[in-house]
C-alpha cells in the first residue's frame, strides 16, 4: 500500500490550515462593500400575518434595506420544494404546502423567516430588526404529530387535510398479518425516536453577491452540496440561471445532513444583494440555528414482531407516524420512507415485512435527514424489538440474533434491498470478544456490591449507503440522479489536481482522495490536490451525504484515473517504443515491464502537453473526466455493544465501555474511518442519553440553546473500542461501503438496551437523562 497509498494511516493534508487558524469558512469571507443581514423571525408557532410595517426600521442608523416576502414574490422568487415525490398508497401524490422563503400571509413555526434587514453592521441590523412592526393573529398550534393528524387539529397547510402529507406503505401486508396470526410468539412495542437538532459547530451562513456589471450572482454558503444548491436555486427558486450563478461552499464546519438542504436564507441573501446593490452576509447565531436548521428523527412507531416456535422471525409489522415539521424540506419525504422502511429487515432473514408510514405537518421546524437519516430509526425499531423479544423468549440477545442472521449473499429482502455481501456473525463475535461479554455477569455482581446497576446491550445494525443508483432512486420518486463526477487533471510538471463533486466538511477527502492517486501513479501525496466545493471549478456533482463520497465519489475518481492511466501508457509506449500492454506505472515512473527502460512520470505529463511526439491522432493534454453511477447501494453493517453503570440514587448513567465492530468493506485510511465511527457513536450516544428537542404545546422551542439542549461533552463519553472485520463490497471498483453514518445508526439501541437491562424494565424514553432514569427506577419500585 505504500506509506501514502490505499490502506495507510496518512495524516490529513487539510489539517495544516485548520490547526493554524487558516481555515476559510463562510463567516471568514469578506467582499468589498459587504453589509450584514438579520432575519426577523416569527415568535409564534402558527399565526396569520396581518400587517408588516418596516418604515421605522428603514430609518434606523446604518440600514441599507428592509425587505419582505411580498417584494420577494413580486420579483418572481419561487417557493422552496421537496425534491422527492412520494405517493400515498391510494395513488395520490404527497401534499406539498407552499414554503415561501419569506413568509407572506402565514407563519407556521417559531423561527419562520418573515423580513430581512440589511445594515452596515450586524448590531445595527439587529437594532433595526427590533423596530420592524409585524401584526400577527395567533392561531392554535400543534407540535405532536400523533395529535396533528386527529380531526379538529389546527390545519397548517390548506393543501394537506388533517396535516397528513402522505400515507405510504411498503411490503406485503397480507403475508405479514398472516405471519403474526400464526406466530408462536409476538413481541409488541410502541417505539419513540426522539427529535434531535444536528448542531454542526459552524452555524449556517450565506454571503450573496450580485455583480450588476456582469449580471452575475455569487453565493458563499455552508453547503454539503453546492451544485445541488445551484441547480435548485436556478431551476425551482428562479434566483438566476445556472450560468449566472456561482455557488461556493468553502470550508464547512460540519454538516451531518443539516447543510444538504437549500434554506430560505441563501436565496434571500442573493435576492437582497441585487435589491440593495450591496453584498449581503448572514450568519446564524446558535439559537437561530436551533430554531431554523432542519431537525432530525421524531418518529412514533407501533411494532409487532412474530416468531415461530424455534425463535425464527416470521414477520414484522411497523406502523410509523413521522413528524416533518411545518414545511417539507428538500429530502424530507424520502427519509421516513425509502431510507427507513427499506432497512427494516436489518441483518435478519424476515420472510414478511409490512411498513406503513404517515408523514405529518406540525408547527415545528422542518425535519429532514440527520446523520443516518431513516436508518437510525429503522435500526432502533428492530434492535429494540430484538432485545425485548430475547427477554420475552428467555434466550440470550446474541443467540436470538445469530439464529436469525442472513448468512448467504446476495440476499433479497422483502423491502426492496438486495444485500450484496456481509458477515454478521464475524462482527458479533468481534464485538463480544472486545467487550469481554462473558465476564459481564461478574462485573454486574461487583457493581451491585457498590450499590450500582450494571447493564449490557447490543445492537446489530445494517445501513444502505453509497446513495445511490440513479435509475433506482428515479423510479422511487427522486428528482435527481445520485451519481458522482470526477475530473483528473495532470499538469505539465506531473502534479495532479482532482476535481470532485463530493464535498468535504470534516470527512478528510483532501487526504483519502489523494491517496487513490498516490496509489495509482506512485507520486508523492503532496503533489496531489483535491478541488471541491465551487461550481465554477467543478462542473457538476451531487455532494456529500448518505456515506456516499467513498463508494460513489471515489469510484468516479477511479474511473477518471483509469482513463488517465490508459492515455499515459499510450504516450509512454510511443516514447519508449514499447507495447502498450507492457507499460507499468510504479513509484512515479512509467516503465516497460521486465526492462530497464523507463520515464519519470512528469516527463510523460510534459510530453502530453508539448505534444511534439504523441501517437498519431492523439489529442494533446492529460485530463480526463468520469461520471460514476453505482449499480447498487452498499451495505455497511456491524455490531455495537454498550455497557453502562447506573447510580440509582441520582439516575446518572455512566458508559463503562462502548465497543464497535464494523464491516465497511475495504478501507482507504483507517485513521479517518475510526474518526468517523467515534463521531457517529458520540451522536448516537447523545441521542440515547442526552439530546432531545423539546417544544411546549404552544410551539415554543424550549431547548433553543446549549443551556437547555444537552450536547455530548468529553466528560459524558468514554474512549471507544473500535475495530473492523471487512467483507469487500462487490459493487464498486474499490470494494468500499462507507462509514460516515454507522456510529449514529448503530449506537442508540445498544445504549438503551443496556439501560433497560440494568434497570430491568422493558423501555425507557430517549434521552435517558438522569431525571428520566431516576423517575423510571422510582416507578418500578412503586
Amino acid at each position: 500500500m505504500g506509506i501514502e497509498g490505499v490502506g495507510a494511516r496518512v495524516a490529513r493534508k487539510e489539517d495544516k490550515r485548520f490547526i493554524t487558524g487558516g481555515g476559510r469558512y463562510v463567516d471568514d469571507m469578506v467582499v468589498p462593500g459587504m453589509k450584514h443581514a438579520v432575519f426577523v423571525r416569527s415568535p409564534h408557532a402558527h399565526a396569520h400575518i396581518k400587517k408588516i410595517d418596516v418604515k421605522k426600521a428603514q430609518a434606523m442608523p446604518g440600514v441599507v434595506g428592509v425587505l419582505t416576502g411580498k417584494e420577494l414574490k413580486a420579483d418572481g422568487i419561487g417557493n422552496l420544494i421537496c425534491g422527492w415525490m412520494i405517493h400515498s398508497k391510494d395513488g395520490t401524490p404527497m401534499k406539498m404546502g407552499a414554503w415561501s422563503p419569506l413568509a407572506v400571509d402565514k407563519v407556521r413555526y417559531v423561527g419562520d423567516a418573515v423580513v430581512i434587514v440589511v445594515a452596515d453592521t450586524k448590531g445595527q441590523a439587529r437594532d433595526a430588526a427590533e423596530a420592524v412592526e409585524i401584526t400577527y393573529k395567533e392561531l392554535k398550534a400543534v407540535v405532536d404529530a400523533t395529535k396533528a393528524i386527529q380531526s379538529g387539529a389546527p390545519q397548517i397547510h390548506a393543501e394537506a387535510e388533517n396535516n397528513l402529507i402522505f400515507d405510504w406503505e411498503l411490503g406485503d401486508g397480507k403475508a405479514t398479518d398472516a405471519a403474526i396470526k400464526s406466530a408462536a410468539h409476538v413481541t409488541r412495542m410502541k417505539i419513540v425516536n426522539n427529535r434531535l437538532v444536528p448542531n454542526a459547530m459552524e452555524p449556517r451562513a450565506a454571503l450573496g453577491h450580485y455583480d450588476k456589471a456582469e449580471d452575475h450572482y455569487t453565493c458563499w454558503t455552508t453547503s454539503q452540496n453546492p451544485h445541488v444548491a445551484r441547480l435548485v436555486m436556478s431551476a425551482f427558486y428562479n434566483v438566476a440561471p445556472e450560468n449566472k450563478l456561482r455557488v461556493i461552499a468553502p470550508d464547512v464546519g460540519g454538516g451531518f445532513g443539516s447543510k444538504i438542504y437549500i434554506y430560505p436564507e441563501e436565496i434571500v441573501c442573493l435576492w437582497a444583494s441585487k435589491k440593495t446593490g450591496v453584498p449581503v452576509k448572514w450568519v446564524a447565531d446558535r439559537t437561530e440555528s436551533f430554531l431554523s436548521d432542519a431537525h432530525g428523527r421524531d418518529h412514533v412507531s407501533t411494532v409487532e414482531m412474530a416468531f415461530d416456535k424455534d425463535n425464527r422471525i416470521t414477520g414484522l409489522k411497523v406502523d410509523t407516524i413521522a413528524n416533518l415539521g411545518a414545511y417539507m424540506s428538500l429530502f424530507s419525504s424520502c427519509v421516513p420512507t425509502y431510507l427507513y422502511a427499506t432497512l427494516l429487515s436489518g441483518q435478519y432473514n424476515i420472510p414478511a415485512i409490512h411498513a406503513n408510514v404517515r408523514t405529518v405537518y406540525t408547527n415545528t421546524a422542518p425535519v429532514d435527514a440527520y446523520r443516518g437519516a431513516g436508518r437510525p430509526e429503522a435500526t432502533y425499531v428492530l434492535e429494540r424489538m430484538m432485545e425485548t423479544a430475547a427477554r420475552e423468549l428467555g434466550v440470550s440477545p446474541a443467540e436470538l440474533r445469530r439464529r436469525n442472521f442472513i448468512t448467504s449473499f446476495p440476499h433479497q429482502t422483502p423491502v426492496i434491498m438486495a444485500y450484496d455481501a456481509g458477515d454478521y456473525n464475524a462482527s458479533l463475535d468481534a464485538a463480544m470478544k472486545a467487550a469481554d461479554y462473558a465476564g459481564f455477569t461478574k462485573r454486574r455482581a461487583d457493581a451491585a456490591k457498590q450499590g450500582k446497576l450494571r447493564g449490557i446491550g447490543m445492537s446489530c445494525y445494517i445501513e444502505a449507503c453509497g446513495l445511490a443508483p440513479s435509475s433506482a432512486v428515479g423510479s422511487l420518486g427522486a428528482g435527481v440522479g445520485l451519481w458522482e463526477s470526477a475530473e483528473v487533471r495532470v499538469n505539465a510538471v506531473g502534479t495532479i489536481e482532482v476535481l470532485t463533486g463530493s464535498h468535504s466538511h470534516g470527512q478528510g477527502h483532501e487526504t483519502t482522495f489523494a491517496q487513490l492517486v498516490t496509489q495509482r501513479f506512485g507520486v508523492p501525496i503532496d503533489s496531489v490536490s483535491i478541488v471541491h466545493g465551487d461550481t465554477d471549478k467543478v462542473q457538476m456533482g451531487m455532494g456529500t451525504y448518505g456515506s456516499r463520497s467513498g463508494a460513489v465519489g471515489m469510484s468516479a475518481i477511479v474511473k477518471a484515473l483509469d482513463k488517465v492511466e490508459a492515455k499515459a501508457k499510450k504516450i509512454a509506449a510511443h516514447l519508449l517504443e514499447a507495447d502498450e500492454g507492457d507499460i507499468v506505472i510504479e513509484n512515479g515512473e512509467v516503465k516497460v515491464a521486465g526492462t530497464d527502460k523507463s520515464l519519470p512520470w512528469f516527463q510523460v505529463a510534459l510530453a502530453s502537453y508539448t505534444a511534439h511526439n504523441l501517437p498519431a491522432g492523439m489529442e494533446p493534454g492529460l485530463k480526463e473526466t468520469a461520471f460514476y453511477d453505482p449499480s447498487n447501494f452498499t451495505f455497511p453493517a456491524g455490531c455495537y455493544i454498550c455497557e453502562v453503570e447506573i447510580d440509582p440514587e441520582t439516575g446518572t448513567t455512566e458508559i463503562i465501555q462502548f465497543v464497535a465492530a464494523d464491516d465497511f468493506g475495504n478501507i482507504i485510511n483507517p485513521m479517518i474511518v475510526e474518526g468517523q465511527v467515534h463521531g457517529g457513536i458520540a451522536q448516537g450516544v447523545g441521542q440515547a442519553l442526552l439530546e432531545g428537542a423539546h417544544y411546549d404545546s404552544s410551539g415554543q422551542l424550549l431547548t433553543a440553546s446549549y443551556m437547555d439542549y444537552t450536547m455530548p461533552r468529553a466528560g459524558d463519553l468514554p474512549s471507544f473500542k473500535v475495530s473492523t472485520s471487512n467483507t469487500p463490497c462487490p459493487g464498486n471498483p474499490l470494494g468500499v461501503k462507507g462509514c460516515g453514518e454507522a456510529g449514529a445508526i448503530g449506537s442508540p439501541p445498544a445504549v438503551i438496551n443496556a439501560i433497560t437491562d440494568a434497570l430491568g424494565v422493558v423501555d425507557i424514553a430517549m434521552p435517558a437523562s438522569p431525571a428520566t432514569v431516576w423517575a423510571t427506577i422510582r416507578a418500578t419500585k412503586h
Partner: protein
Amino acid sequence: MSDVSLTVNGRRVSGNAEDRTLLVHFLREHLGLTGTHVGCDTSQCGACVVHVDGRAVKSCSMLAVQASGSTVVTIEGLADGAELHPVQAAFKEHHGLQCGFCTPGMIMTATDMIARHPQGLDEATVRAELEGNICRCTGYHNIVKAILAASETMAKGAKGKAKQAA
C-alpha cells in the same frame, strides 16, 4: 467608541471600536484573525477560546475594550514560525480534528490545560477540563488522545531543556 490597544501574537495593535464590540469580533473583523470562531451565544462551545494575559478565556464573553492593555495569543500566534506548536502537531498526528471549526478553541484550551498541569495529565482530567469546549465531529476520542500525547511530548521537551540548562 473606544480605543483598544492590545498586544496580539507579539504585535502591538490598536483600533477604534464600539464599546459593545466583543473581543472575538475585534480579532476577526478589525485584525483579520479569523481563526477564532463563534459557535454559540451562551459561552459554552469554546470555539472562541484565546489566551488573555496567559490565561484561556472565551473571547465571545469579553468586550474588546475590557481587554485593552492586555496581551492576547490566538491560534494564529501559537506556532513558532513554520514549526507547529506540539499541541497543533499532536492534533494532526492523532486526527484530533475533522471539520476544524472547534479546533482553534480546542487547541488554545489544550495548551492552557497542559500549562496548568506540569505534573502531567490523565484521561479523566483531560475530559473534565474540556467541559467548556464542544466538538460535534470527533466524539472527543482523538482530541483526548492528542492532548495526552502533547502533554507528554512537552514534558519531555521541558526535561530536555532543564538538562541542557543544567
